[in-house]
């Protein structure tokens, strides 16, 4: 077993995917010669040539638009958008075409495009480099949204995404890029659409994904000292959503807290809350509580730690859930 980071795991996944299928192409800004600003594409141009891993001009709409054309031609593009906030210029291509192409062609043309987006906050970046774009994509019919939280899942989910015939927004939690785990590659984890219980518990279900998984586990650890048993569910993909796993857990615990970095209004927590109250109505002993960023623009680096949800904010919600109605 080797100790590897998520960057290592993602890089290996790209390498192996390119080795297995020569129709896999990797491109974007600074991904070739430089290996990406986070080094996720390091060495791919050397290993597979600049035909298959190349730098593009600085234009995100073009990166996604040409991915669509390449997919029509039978390729499996794995474009990178350099940061979450720079996915916005490609929004029209994603919503109006990538998401709709299969449907528009009655299934004749698939869009096996995996868009890698270093996402979320927490690493002291400048403006536009710490956005949580998942709502925009998850609300868009025809797009899948995958969010790994660990190196092994990074590898396994990225391989599965590239192998999938559907367009996938693969949101990589930057703040977890350098966290290490013991993993033997290649590794295979549950498929896209299956959540994983990261920690079993009986008192409160904590639903989370991406960067919030580590926060939830930390909270569970601290909570245990208070005698609270938290069950931490890592969604792994938002579309498709493993609703059954969430409901099963809430049927057990009767309480649910959902955590996201995104601003509260219409963050993914809203969808979880809506679903849980609908499908576990009688079982709920407290409302589903949302632990979120705020409805403000993401702050500058020095203030982000205050703004981002942390174990304390999460535990406060857990406590409110446990105390609900008793005060």
């Amino acid at each position, binding site marked *: 077993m080797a100790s590897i980071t998520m960057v290592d795991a993602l890089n290996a996944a790209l390498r192996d995917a390119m080795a297995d299928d020569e129709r896999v192409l990797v491109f974007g800004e600074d991904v070739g010669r430089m290996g990406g600003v986070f080094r996720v594409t390091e060495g791919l141009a050397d290993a597979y040539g600049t035909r298959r891993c190349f730098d593009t*001009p600085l234009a995100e709409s073009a990166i996604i638009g040409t991915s669509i054309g390449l997919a029509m031609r039978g390729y499996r593009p794995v474009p990178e958008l350099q940061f979450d906030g720079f996915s916005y210029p490609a929004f029209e291509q994603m919503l109006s075409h990538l998401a*709709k192409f299969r449907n528009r062609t009655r299934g004749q043309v698939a869009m096996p495009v995996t868009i890698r987006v270093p996402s979320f906050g927490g690493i002291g970046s400048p403006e536009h480099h710490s956005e949580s774009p998942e709502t925009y994509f998850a609300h868009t019919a025809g797009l899948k949204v995958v969010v790994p939280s660990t190196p092994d899942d990074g590898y396994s989910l990225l391989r599965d995404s590239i192998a999938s015939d559907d367009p996938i927004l693969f949101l990589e939690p930057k703040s977890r890029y350098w966290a290490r785990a013991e993993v033997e590659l290649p590794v295979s984890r549950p498929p896209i659409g299956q959540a994983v219980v990261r920690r079993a518990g009986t008192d409160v279900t904590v639903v989370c994904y991406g960067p919030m998984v580590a926060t939830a586990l930390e909270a569970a650890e601290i909570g245990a000292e208070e005698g609270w048993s938290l069950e931490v569910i890592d969604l792994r993909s938002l579309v498709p959503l493993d609703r059954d796993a969430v409901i099963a857990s809430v049927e057990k615990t009767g309480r649910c807290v959902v955590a996201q970095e995104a601003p509260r209004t219409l963050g993914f927590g809203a969808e979880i809350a809506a679903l849980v109250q609908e499908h576990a109505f009688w079982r709920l002993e407290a409302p589903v509580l949302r632990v979120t960023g705020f409805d403000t623009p993401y702050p500058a680096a020095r203030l982000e730690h205050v703004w981002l949800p942390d174990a304390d904010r999460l535990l406060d919600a857990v406590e409110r859930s446990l105390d609900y109605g008793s005060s």
Partner: protein
Amino acid sequence: MNTTFTLQAGPVPDLEPIQVLRPDGRLVDDPRVDVQLPAAEHLAMFDAMVVTRALDQEHVNLQRQGQLALFPSCRGQEGAQVGATSALRPVDMLFPQYRELGAWVVRGVDPVGIGMMWRGSWHGGIGLLEAHSSTMSIPIGTHALHAVGYAMGIALDGDDAIAVACIGDGATSEGDVHEALNFAAVFDAPCVFFVQNNQYAISVPVREQTRSASIAHKAVAYGMPGVRCDGNDVLASYATMREAAAYARAGGGPVLVEAVTYRVEAHTTSDDPTRYRSDDEVESWARLDPIDRYRTYLRAIGVLTDDLEAAAVERGKCAATRLREGIYDRPDGDPLELFDHVFAEPTPALVEQRAELEAEIERADD
């Protein structure tokens, strides 16, 4: 075919559009391109133009009868569309906007599949892909990038097909078209940008769309060749596209072609063009009708006879009839199909929602 013009990246394009036939249907003196075509090819193009016009009119009729939701006529643009598409090989991939009826006729697309788009039966049109045309694209300019990506794929494959991005004068203002031109040039993609400058983007005239001396001039910004042709002259359109396609096919990289033409009808059947242009203007362009011009020429050189013209008209009628029969009161598709093509496999949410709609439909049927 001989030509005295050469496609070249760098210099400013000639403002004077390439012309083969004068508006009166006679050959221009000393044309920059020399089109020697077998009679059969001439007739095929003439036929396609006549069929296009007939189908165009039948769409308009069907729309007036409430059978179509909307229709964007290509009347007046048949020369550009038929000429350019006829200069391509069948495997050259078209990326159309929505007003490309003439191109689809050349490619032999079943008109019913086009009419279904305008009836609102399904998005994008049916049967286009089989004819090496992408589906219709409504978000202006966006599909130019698909053409470039496809052309990059052709180059990666070492194939000698090309991709053709069909866009309008209005589209050239969109950021996506800029990015498409730039990517195409940087990656030497075998892509021809075929701009039908029909003078309008809905109500906005091209002079308010750009201050570029011409659309073709924009090629300078990408280091690619740009060329203008008379889009109401089917032979000029043919010859220009043939040169552009050959250039791209030979590995020269992309080319920007501007076909100068005019949208004689309203933008779509919902539009009232009297709000933004004069009858005089429309009439002056109507006098440049591409079919009339070509007919005069083909008659003069003896290629087109009364019989052959009657046959073309007949084929137009047949196509129109086929369209009408396929579209009129066409039953709607199964709404449950809406859940079938969202993903390769429906998600649990889609399975559930499909069942909901099914139950709802059953309830309504009770």
